[in-house]
């Protein structure tokens, strides 16, 4: 059986050209252009997707390395008819302007909330052990790999805080 990558629940054959990044595979090979290319060097986070539950920069990994993996992109997180809680919160808080970094921010935040729930510490955490208290500073630190040049950070953090608070209440 051919090597496959499962994206949002659908299996696709791994591309033949070993140079194809996971990002270009998503955008060029299977037409999922919701994942954005901002720098192609892992510097901006616009291409963030979730692979086997972990957020990664899809430009920094080759499609050929993901045989058997399960990838979730922005298209798998929610749709215009059925947006996720984070997508709705971004809309309400105006957590974007041009919208180009937005899928990456939302994918990143989706996985980041799981990391918080699992009490993974960060540079902003008081301690490496125990429960992590959700705070604006924790969110800012954990989201700092996702650049937004329009400067919507304050609104993005407000959107994430709202969803994070809902999740823990």
């Amino acid at each position, binding site marked *: 059986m051919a090597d496959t990558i499962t994206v949002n629940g659908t299996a696709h054959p791994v591309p033949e050209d070993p140079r194809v990044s996971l990002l270009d595979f998503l955008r060029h090979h299977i037409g999922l252009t919701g994942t954005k290319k901002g720098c192609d060097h892992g510097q901006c986070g616009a291409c963030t997707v979730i692979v086997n539950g972990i957020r990664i920069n899809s430009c920094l990994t080759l499609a050929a390395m993901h045989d058997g993996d399960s990838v979730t992109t922005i298209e798998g997180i929610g749709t215009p008819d059925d947006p996720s809680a984070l997508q709705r919160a971004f809309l309400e808080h*105006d957590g974007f302007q041009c919208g180009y970094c937005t899928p990456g921010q939302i994918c990143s935040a989706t996985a980041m909330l799981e990391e918080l729930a699992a009490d993974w510490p960060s540079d902003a955490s008081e301690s490496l052990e125990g429960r992590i208290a959700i705070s604006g500073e924790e969110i800012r630190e954990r989201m700092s790999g996702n650049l937004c040049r329009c400067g919507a950070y304050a609104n993005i953090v407000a959107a994430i805080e709202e969803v994070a608070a809902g999740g823990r209440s």
Partner: protein
Amino acid sequence: MTVHFKQDEPDNSNRLDRMKQGVLGKPLPRIEGLAKVTGTAPYAAEYPIENCTEGVLVTATITRGEVTSIDHESVLTMPGVIAVVDNEKLCTRAAQGTANEAPMQGPKQVCYWGQPIALVVAETFEQARDAAKHLKVDYREEEGAPIDPGAVEPEEQEDETVHQGDLAHAMADAAHSVDVTYTTRGHASAAMEPHAAIAQWDGDKLTVYAALQMLNYNITELADALDMEEENIRLISRFVGGGFGSKLGISEEVVAAALAAKQIGRPVRVVQSRQQVFQTVMRRSETTQRLRLAADENGKLTGFGHEALVSNLPGEDFAEPVLQSSHFLYDGENRELMLKVARIHRMTAGSVRAPGEAVGMPALEGAMDVLAEKAGLDPVELRLRNIPEKDPEEDLPFSSHKLAECLKQGAEAFGWDKGPRKPRQRREGEWWIGTGMASAARVHNIAEAKARVTLKADGTALVETDMTDIGTGTYTILAQIVGEMLGLDPERVLVELGDTRHPRGPGSGGSWGAASIGSAVYVACKAIREELAAKTGTSEEELELREGEAGTGEALTDLLEGEDLAREGHYEPGDIEDDYTASGFGAFFAEVRVNHYTGETRVDRMLGAFGFGRVLNAKTARSQCIGGITWSIGVALTEALEFDPRDGHLVNCDLAEYHVPVHRDVPDLEVVLVEERDGAASPIQAKGIGELGMCGGAAAIANAIYNACGARIYDYPMTPDRVLEAMPE
């Protein structure tokens, strides 16, 4: 039917305040927002085009000289490679904003390191990228190209020069004076979406999906570059992933894609790499600025001097307009202003968000803080004492002026301490804590604009214009203007933008989009209202429309009797442009922490109060403001282009080395929208807000650094090394 309105007089009728729908100004979420948060909004490179090939630009590795040969055979045998394009029509620079003509063409002549010289086209991106790296190019280099702006004799920009009274005398006589020189480094727009284009020919008809801000100008630029008629070109930019000046004019990839698609007879997509975008599009010039301020014993300015040196390539008209707001912001009858440009062989200098004020205001507002200290005045009070009654140079009235209100409301909301200010009054552990403030100013721009509004027989409305929404909120505010004027829920208004088949607007740039195209939509709606008023036997002035019904009780759908009602609004600014000095104003307040040992600065809180005329959408307007404030943080602390002193190439040409603010650099930001109606700015009484938020904000941070730790710094950005050097023992 087109309705033309040329505005010669201010419109202070407040018509929009008397409409009945009550949606204008409301903080509605963006109408295109769901498409953006679900990844379904298509940006330039994302249109599925059958049989599309991939092009990758090749750039020069010399500073100045000639391309003597390009060895096509060196790559044509590589897998998938289709063609090498090195046509004489290839553009080697991006067009300046509103250039309306082709940028520099002719890839054989090299004027800066990194200049595009060819395009390699292949079946796949990976193949094209590989081949572009292997393309063999020979050059004849012309040694000794000047790249240091301080080492050449600069040209004076004479239209900027002001000699008024005797500044030297005023300085000598002043009770308090300041004579300081600031420097700022170059900046990059760094819009998140790299420059991209897909070109497709159908006979002699060309369609280009592109990442552009100003289609009305861009179509002329492209037609000129390709020697074509505009009628044969269609540009589409429905979603643009940020612009900030970098997409004002057409860039190299647009022309390259069009030429390549013609040459190979297939569609071609060209996406610039992040490094290429940094190196081939536009930089904001570095600046050196001398500020001279003379004041009497009450802190009233008697003299004002601002002289600046900027740079650009030979042959470029653009010179960073550093003095733009200095001409009118403060009093001072004795004035000396001068702008000079050094011709050097670094990449093209052009518009980056708020050209001029973005760097001029941080220098001026830093100098004002020095003056406030010398005069023993609260810096807010110093500014309040120097707001001019009329334009101090042009003898013109201000269209409307909210600087005083912004200063007062901003100080109040921030909790500004008016007490005596001395540095180093508060320390927590390693951190010095202090506050600073600055004024904001950004000239108001407005332009001719056309838009078609159709009130459909079914009671919905359609807006069509080539205007772009680059994150600015255009889609939403146009729906709100139509909703307000025609009595419709904005959800019933469809807005189609970014297509040159529609009536032409001015595009997005210089913060002029909302006021210009909003006015064209307003003019069209007014004409539709006149028709509806006639049908109901009332006047347009008295016609009340709300929720799809006229005040007299008839439903719009009944009044329309099955017919669509369409009007094209054509707005043109007339004498209002010449009769007034118009500007947005504001005030910034910041609190920072500075680390005593590392020199690191953190912004703990920041507030901006802004007056920019009518607020069209309180949510998107606030977002524009916080975006500007975020850029202010970058200007103050981290952003600096670094050029190799040997060959002038941009060294930090990516997002790891050019430091834009990230999440953790930006605290929660507070914005005060100061109520204003500016009837001389536009018929909708609005001014621009896309840039005001970064026009002076860096100085509030710089002044807070001084207040916190005593380090008075005259060079932006205020990186830890500079803070440590200036930090008192």
